[in-house]
């Protein structure tokens, strides 16, 4: 199936960026994250868990932890 083109946003360098990009972008573009406001760590943890439990994203728990840590590093107020 054809797709409409993506315009990938750029994300800051931080540990976990590679796993974040490769897993999250399987099902949706990274705009889903870049257009979100900053959220506390517990919100990002819940979002990653939602993707795994409710949307059945194939992410193991160790990877999920790294992705969550990355999201908190780049999309939370510190």
């Amino acid at each position, binding site marked *: *199936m*054809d*797709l*409409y*083109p*993506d*315009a990938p946003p750029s994300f800051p360098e931080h540990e976990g960026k590679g796993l974040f990009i490769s897993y999250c972008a*399987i*099902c*949706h*573009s990274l*705009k*889903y994250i870049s*257009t*979100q*406001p900053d*959220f506390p760590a517990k*919100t990002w943890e819940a*979002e990653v868990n939602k993707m795994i439990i*409710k*949307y*059945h*994203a*194939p992410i193991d728990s160790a990877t999920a932890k790294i992705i969550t840590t990355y999201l908190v590093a780049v999309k939370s107020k510190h």
Partner: protein
Amino acid sequence: MLKNTIFYAVIIFVVCATLPSCGNNGNITTPASSQQLVKYPEKKEMILLTDRPPQLETPLKIFREDFTPNEYFFVRWHLSQILTKIDVDTFRLYIGGSVDKPLALSMNDLKTKFTPDSVVALAICAGNSRSTFDPKVPGSQWRNGAMGNAKWKGVKLKDILAMAGVKNGSIEVTFQGLDRGALPDVPAFIKSLDISHAIDGDVMVAYEMNGQPIPMLNGYPLKLVVPGWYATYWVGSLARINVLTDTFKGFWMKTAYRVPSTGVNESPDSLAKNTIPISTINLHSIFVEPDTSEPVTINKECIVEGLAFDDGTGIKKVELSFDNGKTWQNTNLNTELGKYSWRRWKYEWTPKTKGTYHLCVRATDNNGHIQTDKQWNRSGYARGFIEHLDVNVN
């Protein structure tokens, strides 16, 4: 006939200026992030939220028109695999499940074997205006542009179901489009309605929008139209209708798109325990003009204008305040375009002193319900909060 949009899928990205600040009791402002404008196939410049799947918001100035042009109509898909082209000669709408005679209807069948029906109805995303929730909630950060008013033409769902013959004991009907998730385990986007709602004569399978075929990005060739209900039920690229003798237990009804059973309010500190599927459009009114990026001049007439809408109960009055809600003036309502249309309100204002005015707008429906000034829920759904707009007069 092959409808193909991808060959001219040139997408132009423009970063434009920050939105004018839109005060909320003077404390909260619209996110200061810049808007990215894009041009998708069959669309003019719209605000990009996400690109896979596409979520595109209508710029506010387009709401100066009573009918939202198709090329500006908001776009919202849930699953990333959506149609970019389809052969409508081989396309069929399948009706099955608890029916006497399963059907596979071509576009020609729909246009020739049924009496055409039309309705003016507002399509509004359940999460419209989510960016104004405080505290902020995850999800697409729509401003007020995840909605549009259109004249829909198609076939009454009850006529299609009558042709198929709904069996006794049927209680629900499900609707699925041709969109798919990136992985097989992603829950299919399927919505359900009670059988009584499905055959009430309001629900329509539409093949035209504002006198034209529905744009691919809005669900060509067929879209379910559920007047008065949030657009999560308005399934695009509709291809499968299934009549059930049991309650539908799919993800998009049982897990997603739910609100507290007591209404669309809850506290961040104590989330509601019981939830139900979101349903009808909450009473709301918004500002469209003045454009606050332009100065408003003292002793000169300024048109204050906006839109009010609800579930079809009807707008009784819309009031405007210039002093942050202390006193209220009645506005003029334009002619009703239809029970399920939005309703335009206008007020001719000539400010006599300079300064910042804190405008608020509130609608009252025909049952006497009035908009509230506090609202929050975890998903950012069914915004009905009184809108505020700060206007500087020079």
